[in-house]
Structures are given as C-alpha cells and as structure tokens.
C-alpha cells in the first residue's frame, strides 16, 4: 500500500501551491482558485486519513463532504462579491483595492 505520508506530502504540496496562488495572483478569481486548491488539499488529507487511520468509521469522508459543501457556498458568495466589486471598481485586481488602509 502507498505509504500514508506520500498522500500527505502531495496534499501539502497542493496546499502550498494554492497558498501561493492566494498570495501572488492579482486577479481575485485566481485567488479564489488558489483557495479551492487549498481546500482540495485538505480534503485529500481527510480522505487519506480516513483510509489509513479510521477506515471503519467514516468520519473523514463525512468531514470532506461538508468541506465540499462549504466550499461551494463560499465560492458562490465569493464570486458574487467579485461581481459587485467589479461593478463598483471596474476591476477585480486585488492589488488595486487599497483605498482603505492604515
């Protein structure tokens, strides 16, 4: 069987790539994509843990389902926000949204 940490390291990598997207992309939608990647990494973690540590109880899977649900809701609200921002600012470049600071 594939060692558990393989999965975990892949998930960690996915998580960090997502994080990088969040940190560096200018476009808010790209940022959102990064967040989705991070959530996927977590889901991968959860499922891997389920498979390797509690294969009998379905905790990890259930958790992952909820995460997916929340992710969907979050994406919906997020995109709605992006649209309203786009409408008001004419751009969704995250970097430019700094009228409020200090």
């Amino acid at each position: 069987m594939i060692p558990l940490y393989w999965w975990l390291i892949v998930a960690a990598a996915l998580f960090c790539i997502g994080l990088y997207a969040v940190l560096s992309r200018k476009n808010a939608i790209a940022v959102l994509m990064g967040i989705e990647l991070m959530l996927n990494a977590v889901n991968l973690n959860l499922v891997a843990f389920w498979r390797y540590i509690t294969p009998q109880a379905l905790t990890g899977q259930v958790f992952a389902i909820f995460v997916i649900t929340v992710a969907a809701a979050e994406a919906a609200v997020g995109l709605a926000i992006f649209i309203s921002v786009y409408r008001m600012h004419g751009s969704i470049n995250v970097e430019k949204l700094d009228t409020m600071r200090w």
Partner: protein
Amino acid sequence: MPADQIVRYIVFLILTVMTLGGALGVVVSRNLFHSALFLVLSFAGVVGYYVLLDAGFLAAVQLLIYIGAIAILILFAVMLTRGLMDKRQSQHNQQWLIAALVALLIFVVLAVVLWQVEWPVASEQALASPNVSVSQLGQELLGPYVIPFEVASVLLLVALIGAVILARETES
C-alpha cells in the same frame, strides 16, 4: 510487491503529476481562462485520488460539485469580468517572490513533520477492509451528523440568497 500494488503506485504518480501539474498551471498561467482549465485538470486528478483511496462516493461528489459546479462557476465569472485583465501585464503581484519562498518553506516544514510522524495507522486487517458503504455514509449524515447536515443546508440557502443580494443589479 503484488502487481496491483505496482499499478497503484504508477497511477498515484500519474495522478500526482496531473494534480500538482494542474495546480501549478493554475498558478503560473497568464491567461485566466487557461488557469480555470488547469484547475479542472487538478480537480480531476483529485477525483482519481479519491478513487484510489476507495472513496468512490466522494469521487463522485468531487466530480459533480467541484468540476461540475465550482469550476464552471469560476469560468462564468472569468467570462463576466473578461477583457479587463491585461495579458501583457504580469498576473502576479509584487510580493510573488517572497510568497513563493514562504509557500515553499511551509511545504518543506510540513513535509518534514508529516514524514517524521509515526501515524497511528489502523491494523492491517482494518486497512484491508475499509467501510465504503454509501448507505452507511447516508446514515452517518442523517444520524450523528444531522445537525451539521441541517446547518449545511441552511448555509447553502443563505449563501444563495446572499449571492443574489450581492450580485444582483441594483434597480434604479
């Protein structure tokens, strides 16, 4: 090592290339549309992982929700806000280098920790026969997890209304 195990390893590697490659594609691609497509690729890799992990139902959910809903939603949004992103400009902000460094370091640290830990892996016997029953999953959701389940449903509705409120054009 039995053959099916070797296949598993190979599949795992392919899926890894797919997932991480897709993810990297999302990150580096200048074209937002391409990014979205890479995202779908990455999600697809994760679907494969779930299959490999014997989580069939979850794989289906992933396929339906992430690829079928979220990625498409994102594509819509990309289209809606299109044209304003100047492709000649860098799609990365000023802090991308430090961000890359930090992400990389976090990965290293996490990897070290995850690799070092002796995980409390279940017994061979238990590992061999995971509980993959979908009906069991359903019972879980409506039994012990009934409160989160209901909350999630409310949450979805609220998110829906919220999205409408935020995104709808203001009537003049």
